């Protein structure tokens, strides 16, 4: 991925490998949420044709990363030749390792947590020899435990660690929705000048949540309008990725979404 051109891509969904290969060009890069299966017959071609981005679970920056986690990340980043590696602004496992929600969930935004994230992100980047991008995660329920705003947490994190921002538009929409904020106003509270990668995605209704949440579905026109609005405010962006990774993702969804995204963002 060059520095002068914005790359458009999707997540590698192995069950759609043939379709992905057939749409090389429309799809320029692939984010890798899982390591390739040992017997994936398409991966050699995938690796040859697309720029690959490491977007696996590396570890939570709230705690020190184990040597095993660092070694695994290094191995994958080398395999993909990933220009940057992604992690989520999340804290999902208790310190004793006993409880793990195994799903993205944000930390409380405190000075103590910020210091932990900065220290561990520095170690991670040094260990991998590659820059980190951090994706923001929405919070579904109210927890009045923050000392600073999410925007300040992220801004200070990027300034101190050297990492940059992976902005997910659907996450931003959900965060604003559940905090009762106007989404564009909320987006302006985030460090948009630090964005390296932009995720576009859809949301869907969940009965358990009695409301919308992250889903591997096409973004609505409203979501793409929001992506286009924010796209004009992220001068350092290098990649736009359709964030959908699931075995239920249907054929046709990725090409259709990328065509719509390219058109709406003026990247056709």
């Amino acid at each position, binding site marked *: 991925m060059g520095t002068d051109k914005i790359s458009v891509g999707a997540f590698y969904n192995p069950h759609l490998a043939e379709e992905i290969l057939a749409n090389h060009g429309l799809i320029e890069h692939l984010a890798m949420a899982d390591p390739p299966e*040992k*017997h994936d017959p398409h991966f050699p071609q995938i690796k040859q044709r697309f720029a690959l981005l490491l977007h696996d679970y590396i570890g939570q920056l*709230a705690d020190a990363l184990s040597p*095993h986690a660092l070694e695994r990340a290094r191995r994958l980043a080398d395999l993909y030749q990933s220009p940057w590696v992604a992690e989520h602004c999340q*804290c*999902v*496992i*208790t*310190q*004793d390792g*006993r*409880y*793990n*929600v*195994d*799903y993205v*969930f944000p*930390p*409380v935004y*405190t000075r*103590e*947590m910020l210091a*932990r994230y900065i220290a561990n992100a520095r170690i991670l980047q040094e260990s991998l020899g590659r820059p980190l991008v951090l994706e923001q995660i929405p919070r*579904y*329920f*109210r*927890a*009045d*435990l923050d*000392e600073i705003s999410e925007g300040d947490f992220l801004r200070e994190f990027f300034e101190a660690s050297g990492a940059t921002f992976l902005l997910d538009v659907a996450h931003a929409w959900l965060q604003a929705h559940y905090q009762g904020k106007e989404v564009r106003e909320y987006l302006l509270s985030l460090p948009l000048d630090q964005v390296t990668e932009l995720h576009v995605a859809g949301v869907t209704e*969940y009965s*358990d*949540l*009695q409301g919308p*949440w992250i889903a591997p579905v096409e973004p609505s026109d409203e979501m793409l309008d929001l992506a286009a609005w924010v796209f004009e405010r992220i001068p350092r962006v290098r990649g736009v990725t359709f964030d959908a990774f699931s*075995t239920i993702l249907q054929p046709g969804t990725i090409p259709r979404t990328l065509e719509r995204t390219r058109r709406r963002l003026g990247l056709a």
Partner: protein
Amino acid sequence: MNSRDAQDVILRLLADGPYRSTAMGGRGADAEVAAVLARVDLPALDRFGRFLCRHYYRERVVHYFKYCRALAPLVGRSPEAALKTEEFKALMPGLILGERASAQRVLDLLRRFLTADAEPVRAKIPYWDDLIAYQGAFFLSDAVPSAQPLAPFPARAETTQFVELGFDLPAVLPRLLRPFEELPMPLRTPVRLLLARSQHGEVTAIRCSDTLKTLLDSLTGEVAPAQVAARLGVDAGSFERTLRQLESLGAVVAQESFSSSHVGSDLPAASAKG
């Protein structure tokens, strides 16, 4: 309590159904935990906890029961549909994500769901029950084991499972995931598999001979490896190499690792990842 500890309280509330139920009832929390609870929207947290629970098991059912899923058009039932039943809904408040006992309860539900009135399914797919047993073993191996008390000598890990099958399933499994006109049929022959879970959560299945099973059954943790080797009439050097391989797979635990490095997967039998 610092903010990292407060985060842990929230994570436990989300992952541990019984703990959450107690908190929702306003019972049993010490002062520090109560201070966190007071600042959280508990009804919304409860909804998110239920969402996470369904998501957690769905991910695992989709991953580990992929062969049953591939056969769903033939049998008319998808394993993940079990998670939309009233029975699962009733189970949710008692489940702890990652806990082995909880995984066992979900697995019991899955088995009931997949084998209820299944005679027509068995008529089409004679190895249907084997398939459920095989995938169920992987599903259970995914759960985090409770801390096993360390014995003085190498012992079989509590997470190690033997799966006895009536068909040679591993030979046909990859073909079930590809389009087929005629249902792939494995050889009808007894097959024993050993499933092991490494300390990093990787689950490996290998064919298990009688000799290997006897060896593992002999590893009680109370007998020195040299004595076990002598009792089994096995050369001490090759016995130790096998122990190292079994340790790297997670089939054996030892108080002090007896291998200085984890060896590669050069066990003689074929291995398969679920």
